[in-house]
Each structure stands twice: as C-alpha cells, then as structure tokens.
C-alpha cells in the first residue's frame, strides 16, 4: 500500500521529530512511552500528533510497561511504537523477547547515550549495538536499523514499521544522541510504501494463531474481531497454546529465525561508497558513518584508495556484503563509538581475507573525520 504524506518537501527538523513523522507516515496510531534523555522529544511530539491522526498516546509508569502497552495495542490491531534510551532500553529487554516469541509487531526506538548505567545522558554513544541484538534472553531473532542522518531516521522508521508488520516481529531503530538532536534540512517524500500485517482469510473456526504460511509468518487477527485465541510467551504450538514438547518448541524457535533469515534481501541495506578500486575500507554506521564518508573523500584527494561500507541494517549482520568487501580490499577499519562491538562480526565475515583493525572511542566523544583521515593515512603509509 502506498500512502500520501501531507506536507512533503523541504523541512528543517530534528532527528527525533523525523522519527515521529516517519512513524505517522507508516500508519502508527499508538504510542506508549516513558521520558528519558535523549529520546523525550519523541514522546512530546507523539502526544501532540497522535490525536490528530486518530491515534492514542500514553505516558506509562516505566519502560517495562511502555513496551507492554504497545504490545497490547498491537494485538488489538494498532501500529505501535515506543522510544527510549540506554537505561530504559535495559528495562525493555524483557518485552523485546516477549514480542519476538509471541510474534507481535512493534517498533522500539533507542536513542543511544553514554553508558554503562545512567552514564552520560546527553552524550552520544554506540554502546547498545550488542544489547540490541542479544539483550533479551534466549535464542531470538533481531532486526536492528541504524540511520546516519535526520532524513534517514524518517526513511528507516518507515522501514522499521514495514519490517515489523511483514515479519510479525519487534524492530529496533538504533541511533545516537547526535542524530536524535541534530536539526537538518530534509526533503520528505511525496508518498511512502506501507506494509500491513497479513490478516487471516480462513473461516473463524479454522483459525489457529500460529499456523505459519510458507514464508514462516502466521496471519494475525486483532483481538475482538471474532477469532478467539491465546497468546503466550511460553513455548507454544500452532494453536498458540503452551507446550513442553521439545520438538514443537524447537520448530517454533527455528521458524522465528527462518522467517527473517530467508528474506535477508528485504531486511539488509548497506551503503557502499568508492569501494571498486579501494585498498582500504572503513566499516562504520550511524553518525560515525558520516565522519567516515568525509574521511574517505579527503583521503581520496590525497591519493589514498579508500572506500566506505556503511550498514543501515546492523542486525541481521550483513555478513555477505562485508565478505565481498573483504575480498576486494587489504584492510578494513571498523570505527565505532564503543569499545568494539561490531568489529568481531566484521572479522567473522572477513574470514581473514582482509586485515581488520578498529578505531574506537568511548566516553561521549564522537569519532571525527580528522581522526579517521589520520588512520587511513597511517595505513596507507604502512603499506607504501
């Protein structure tokens, strides 16, 4: 489905505001949140805008209940979102797992700030990348998107809703404080393509809530529409009913992964820049991806054959794309605002085909273009 957005065109907006606009363009009609810096603007915009689109907004008592409320709303047929930052994201882990297991579409925004613990509320960080993948217990799938600009926040919020609906799964939008608070001029599209969850077409009495189609995604009926069914976070069978049958549980958990892994082309998005003849590539995401792009351009002016691979999808990890880059270049520089979270994934994908080095910052300082330019110059000098 394609829907028109009102007021398209050039706008000067903040990253967090772009997130709200992307959500509304996607059909979001329920917001449940809890205030936390640096994400609070999302709640503040939502409470003003939800009533205008016929939606509902509520400020819950904590982040645990914020995510619970949107899961409840999603089961009732709403498109629902919550937003938070580090400490709140920690509290949400319980229900990220529930949404994955019960297959409830929802979007969770984590505007990353410095950690651990309350850390640095107004400073940027990329410290939650592994938490976004592995924070909740048990084997579970994860889709995590990382925009690098205000415009991309809009685009990836739309994509987050679409993937959540398409695969009946929670989707995490991960960006840092800088992107959340930066104001940039963005041109909003005239229209966006919106995907809605598949609803069952079989007769009421033949409906089982967890009977998956060949794609691995079960059709979803909203509560109150005549199909009466059970939803649980316990391992369950196709009827949605708890089971201790290990074979049934194994098949369920495998299906939760397969439904996404079999459609990586719909999920994974990567920007590749000047890689064709590159000797060295920077792997960077989010705001660091922008520093890296500038560093690559400056290095090129100095005759260094540098390129950039910037994943917009962090999880599932773009293993094939990174492996391809590793075949082309001698060195991959992994730049992150943490003490090394995706570098291990890059090494795993590169399989020794390229040397992998990392450039890391923590404590709230961003990775600057100048710093990366120096890294590229040093690598080039060492190879010369």
């Amino acid at each position, binding site marked *: 489905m394609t829907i028109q957005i009102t007021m398209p065109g050039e706008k000067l907006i903040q990253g967090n505001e772009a997130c709200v606009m992307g959500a509304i363009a996607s059909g979001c009609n*329920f917001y449940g949140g809890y205030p936390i810096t640096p994400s609070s603007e999302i709640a503040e915009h939502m409470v003003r805008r939800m009533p205008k689109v016929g939606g509902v907004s509520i400020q819950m008592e904590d982040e645990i209940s914020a995510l619970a*409320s949107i899961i*409840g709303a999603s089961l009732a047929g709403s498109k629902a979102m919550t937003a938070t930052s580090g400490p709140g994201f920690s509290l949400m882990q319980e229900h990220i797992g529930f949404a994955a297991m019960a297959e409830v579409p929802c979007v969770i925004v984590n505007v990353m700030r410095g950690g651990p613990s309350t850390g640095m509320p107004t400073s940027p960080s990329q410290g939650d990348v592994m938490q976004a993948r592995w924070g909740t217990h048990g084997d579970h799938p994860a889709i995590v998107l990382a925009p690098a600009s205000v415009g991309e926040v809009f685009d990836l919020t739309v994509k987050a809703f679409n993937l959540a609906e398409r695969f009946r799964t929670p989707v995490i939008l991960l960006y840092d404080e800088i992107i959340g608070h930066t104001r940039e001029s963005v041109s909003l599209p005239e229209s966006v393509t919106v995907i809605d969850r598949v609803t069952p077409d079989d007769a009421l009495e033949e409906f089982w809530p967890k009977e998956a189609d060949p794609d691995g995604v079960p059709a979803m009926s909203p509560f109150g529409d005549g199909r009466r069914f059970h939803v649980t976070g316990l391992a369950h069978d196709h009827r949605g009913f708890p089971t201790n049958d290990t074979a049934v549980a194994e098949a369920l958990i495998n299906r939760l992964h397969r439904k996404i892994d079999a459609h990586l082309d719909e999920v994974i998005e990567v920007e590749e820049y000047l890689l064709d003849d590159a000797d060295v590539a920077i792997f960077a995401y989010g705001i660091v991806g922008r520093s890296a792009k500038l560093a690559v351009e400056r290095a090129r002016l100095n005759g260094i054959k540098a390129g950039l691979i910037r994943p917009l999808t962090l999880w599932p990890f773009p293993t094939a794309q990174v492996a391809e880059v590793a075949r082309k270049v001698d060195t991959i520089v992994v730049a992150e605002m943490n003490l090394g979270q995706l570098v291990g994934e890059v090494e795993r994908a590169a399989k020794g085909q390229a040397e992998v080095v990392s450039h890391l910052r923590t404590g709230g300082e961003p990775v600057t273009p100048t710093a990366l330019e120096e890294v590229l110059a040093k690598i080039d000098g060492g190879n010369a």
Partner: protein
Amino acid sequence: MTDVKIDIQPDMTTEVTATERADVRSYLRQWAMPHVLCPGCAHGIVLRSFLEAVDQLQLDQDKIAMVAGIGCSSRLAGYVDFCTLHGTHGRAPAFATGLKLARPDLNVVVVTGDGDGLAIGGNHLIHAARRNIDMTVLLLNNSIYGMTGGQAAPTTPEGAIASTAPQGHIEPGFDACKLLMGAGASYVARVFAANPIEMTKVMMDGLSHPGFAFIELVSDCPEYFGRYNKIGGGPEMLNWIAVRDEGIAGPLSEKRFVEHIPVKPPAIGVKSGVLQREIRPVYAGVRAAEGQHT
C-alpha cells in the same frame, strides 16, 4: 476502613441456587484440557464463578479480552475461550492498558495473583488503578507462590511457613485492598473463594463498574500453603480461609459450600464485600475527542 456504608454493596438479594448455576462449558477451551491446577485448588472455583458472572451479564464472548501475568492464577487465561493474553510476570495491567486504549469496545479482564500483582507487578497495578482504566482486575490471593513451589509472597502472613521461610515468615504482608484503595481504585472488593455465589455477584458488580474494578479473591494453595502449614487439603484450606471472612456488613450470604471442618483458626480476620466504590472519569489516553480528528 471503619465507616464504609452499606449502600456500596452490590445487590445480593437475587437468590442463585446450586441447581440453577449456569453451564459454563461453552466458555472453556475443552481442547486445552486437562488443566495444570492441582486437585483441591480453589482457583477453579474462582474461575467458575467468573464464567457465571459473564454468563449472567450476557457479555459478548468475542469482546472479552483476558490478560494474565505469570503464576497459577494467570494460567486460567489459557483455558477460557476468549481472546487471551498470557504476558510476562506482573505486567498484565500494562498489556491490558494498551489493549483497552487501542480497543475501547473490548471488555478487558486482568487475572493475576498475589505474587504477580503485588510483588513484581505492584507498580503497574497501582498506576492502572490511579488512571482509572476501564478494566476488571481479579487478583487471586493464595498467600504464597504456588507455581514456583511455595515460596513466601508479599501476602504470606507473618509466622506462616513457606519454602523460603522455613522458620516462619518474618515480614508483614500487604493488604491488597487497602493498597488499591490508597492508589485510587474506583472499585475495590474482596470475596472469599469459599463463597462462590458471592464471588459471582461481586464479579458481576465489578464487571459492570465503569472504570478500574479491583477484586481480591481470597483463594488457597493446598499443595504448598496447606501442606507446609499443616492445614490440610482443599476442603480444609477453604474452611481455613472462610473463617477469616469477617464480612463487612454481616455475612454476604448464609450460603457456604464447605461443611464445617475444625481447623486452627488463623490469627487475623479480613473484611469482605465492596470496600470502595466511586464514579470518576474513565481514562482514555491522549486522543482526539470523538469525531475531532480528520
């Protein structure tokens, strides 16, 4: 609560006799049987009373959403043929809040226990009460953690034996109804599982209340509480809780389904009946008034 007036009590005059009791099997997922509850557990009596209330009120089966947490009482949601959500430990009121705001036409019922609702989920419960979200909360209080094997709960009486209180519990327990009255619940009632007909009547009353209705069902756990405290099995436990029932304006009914079996009476009695009732605006979330959005 010393000066609660009798006029907040539901109409208890309608006689319901055992032979007239409704056939509630159409509200059960027969395919999901047998259930997980232990023999003699009073949770089944509570469930039957609830289904009778649904039947008496002629509620639309398709429009009932039952939301539960984790524990023996919360497992009831799996066996009733409504839309049912078996969520996470203690969070049922939060799931139910989102559900109700998104679909105000649904009749939302939360089923929780004393550990689920008062320990890990206490925060969600008091905030749902404060907001006056239109839902009915059934809190089955058996004074112990049953599903995990008989550990002490926030309602375990001082001195009672639990697997994590082998010498007798050293903490004071919560009075769930006082807690909810303090949180501003617009309807608060307590009924004892020994009195199934009263349970049905109070549940009918609570389900009809516009706003947040909290009903504490004093239930039991013969498997752990009864065994550890040497009270006995199902009938003995039912009687043990029945003798704690002080009523509020005299006994709610003369009917008792349990024959008197002598047991050591518990130290404290508790009031039952409707303890608080007020009509105040029902919370609907931040949304446009009807017809205002374009």
